[in-house]
């Protein structure tokens, strides 16, 4: 009995100990906004990568001007199931709006629909949900411009120009923005300019991690030695590929380009492994998302094609498919990679 009791004491003691940490932790984590501001919650695909941190920063600065308190949080790995927890929490916490970049279009959609039923407005950014799960979708830049930019960057560096096989090193097969861009590339290959270019394969690594991207790329290059170019439309993929080519001294053999983070890509530009890549301004995307949310909350924006609103002095227009394009992609070369403001 004595032993039991002492154990009980310990168990309860430990329980109280961890629980007592809870309020301390809670007190520390709460980033309460300015009085009177409307709470909105931004959920990235996963946290800890530059683009989403920048989008959150954009949302915060622009949101502050519009009376929005932009909170930010999400899963640590690309998991749509975990995103659902964040959606539910935002609804339960009484947040008025949710921004989300979906890990896949479908999984979080029922939770988004449920949120909308509770009067919460949803604006998707970067990666869309199903149309029923949101009012409008803010894309970093248009799909058309991404696909053409990618093809031009890889094609112009191929020898002879715009001739030969290339592969796309994409992300998880379910990433809805990746799927859209890749489909557009496939469609654009029918244009006369790209007639001699051949898409050998679209590689979908099993996860959005650098190690999976590297091993998938390695396998793809080994299986088809005639490949000359690599497009990687993910910041994780292009950096992993550049590292792989550098390590294995294959930079001169392959043309590598795609969508990359300027800070991450600087070393591969200076070692001449990558000559150009593109990205849009995620801070700007976050700003436009905040403006869109503000207008959705006030009821001025419902997603009808042709509706427009002002954001930081720029007029934004709703395109077909309830889509708003936040701006154009910037092409980075050695000349301007150092001065990238994001």
């Amino acid at each position, binding site marked *: 009995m004595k*032993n*039991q009791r*002492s*154990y*009980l004491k*310990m*168990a*309860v003691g*430990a*329980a*109280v100990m*961890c*629980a007592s940490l*809870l*309020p301390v*932790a*809670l007190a520390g*984590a*709460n*980033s309460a906004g300015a009085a009177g501001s409307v709470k909105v919650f931004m959920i990235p695909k*996963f*946290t*800890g990568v530059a683009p989403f941190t920048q989008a959150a920063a954009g949302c915060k600065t622009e949101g502050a001007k519009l009376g929005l308190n932009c*909170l930010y*949080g*999400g*899963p*640590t*790995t690309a*998991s*749509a*199931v*975990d995103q*659902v*927890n*964040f959606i*539910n*929490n935002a*609804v*339960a*916490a*009484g947040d008025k709006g949710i921004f989300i970049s979906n890990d*896949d*279009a*479908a*999984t*979080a*959609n*029922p*939770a988004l629909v*449920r949120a909308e039923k*509770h009067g919460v407005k949803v604006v998707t950014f970067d990666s869309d949900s*199903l149309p029923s799960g949101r009012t409008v979708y803010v894309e970093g830049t248009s799909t058309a411009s991404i696909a053409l930019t990618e093809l031009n960057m890889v094609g112009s560096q191929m020898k002879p120009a715009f001739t030969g096989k290339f592969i796309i090193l994409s992300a*998880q*097969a*379910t990433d809805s923005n990746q799927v859209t861009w890749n489909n557009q590339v496939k469609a654009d290959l029918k244009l006369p300019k790209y007639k001699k270019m051949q898409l050998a394969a679209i590689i*979908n690594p*099993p*996860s959005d991690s650098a190690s999976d991207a590297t091993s998938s790329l390695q396998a793809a290059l080994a299986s088809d030695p005639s490949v000359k170019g690599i497009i990687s439309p993910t910041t994780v993929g292009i950096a992993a590929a550049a590292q792989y080519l550098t390590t294995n001294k294959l930079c001169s053999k392959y043309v590598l380009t795609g969508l990359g983070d300027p800070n991450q890509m600087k070393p591969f530009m200076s070692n001449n492994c990558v000559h150009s890549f593109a990205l849009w301004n995620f801070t700007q995307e976050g700003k436009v998302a905040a403006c869109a949310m503000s207008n959705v909350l006030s009821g001025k924006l419902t997603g009808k094609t042709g509706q427009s609103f002002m954001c930081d002095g720029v007029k934004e227009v709703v395109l077909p498919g309830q889509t708003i394009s936040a701006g154009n992609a910037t092409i980075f070369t050695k000349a301007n990679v150092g001065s990238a403001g994001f």
Partner: protein
Amino acid sequence: MVPWTVDRMNNLRKLLVRWELGLVVLIVIVMVVGQIADGDLLSSFNLQTTALNSVILLCLALGLAPVIMTGDIDLSVVGTLALVGVIIGDMTAHGVNTWLAIGIGLAISLLCGLINGLLVVLFDLPALAVTLGTSGAYTGVSFLILKGLAISTFPSVIVSIGSSNLTGTQIPFAVVLLLVFAVIMTFLLHGTVFGKAVFAIGGSRKAALFSGIAVNRVRILTFVISGLMAGIAGLLFLGNYQTAQAGMGASELLPAVTAVILGGVSAYGGTGTIPGVVLAAALLALLQSALGLHNFSGEGQTMAVGFLLIIAIGLPPISHKYQDWKRRRSTSPLMIANASLSGSEEGK
């Protein structure tokens, strides 16, 4: 390592009855503190969505518990979940009768579990390696079936099972279903010969064999149960998230294992209770919800879960050491002398 005497086993079992009490205390504390901090934790919407979201985790944990109790592990549960989800989704998308598709899906989950069990037991292979391998294989097959695409429309029956409420209430049907499963598993493990065999095998495989227990059959059966529960989790996943794809549910493995260990099931086998696992799943869900409501980052939530897991694994050995120490102090001076001489040896 100190050999497990019968005395110690009994002691541990008594101690673990207290484990559930500790979990209840923790749940109450999280509820009270969380509610005071935010006021939304115990709202009906939050309780409902939190419960619905922990259904998959609890379903996997209930199946994993008997496997871990025998001292094995099954990492393939999320692979099975995905395979069953994809097969049911693909069949219903091609017009197969819903109930037939569900039946076939669950039969395949039994088969997945059986394959694990046979490989581990008959070939005497380590469960960790085998189930890691089959997990990849099951996920791979589901990938081949859908070729990286996702299915997102399902018959209303499946959606209802996964996400509708009991008529006239705010209580999700899936939660009630899971509680029924928990009661069945509690009976199976704590009230039948099979259950006794599971704990005996976990305590000492050799001793169980010598006392005439059909060790192989029981171990295989635990893997089959684990497979079936993973299959059911796959079905519930379809209903709750309305999506089927190769990687579905992959992020649920660690939380499910955490719930089992936090529930008081020893990572070395031989101990634990099903009510403990249910309480642990509830605690994890409430804690994550409380932290999330307070705008705690994803990293913070992951850390909290990891912290709880380490406490759960670390507390029993620490308490043993503490008791040993107390026992020595309370016995004769001669014993103290002996203990102090051999103490450093014994602790290792």
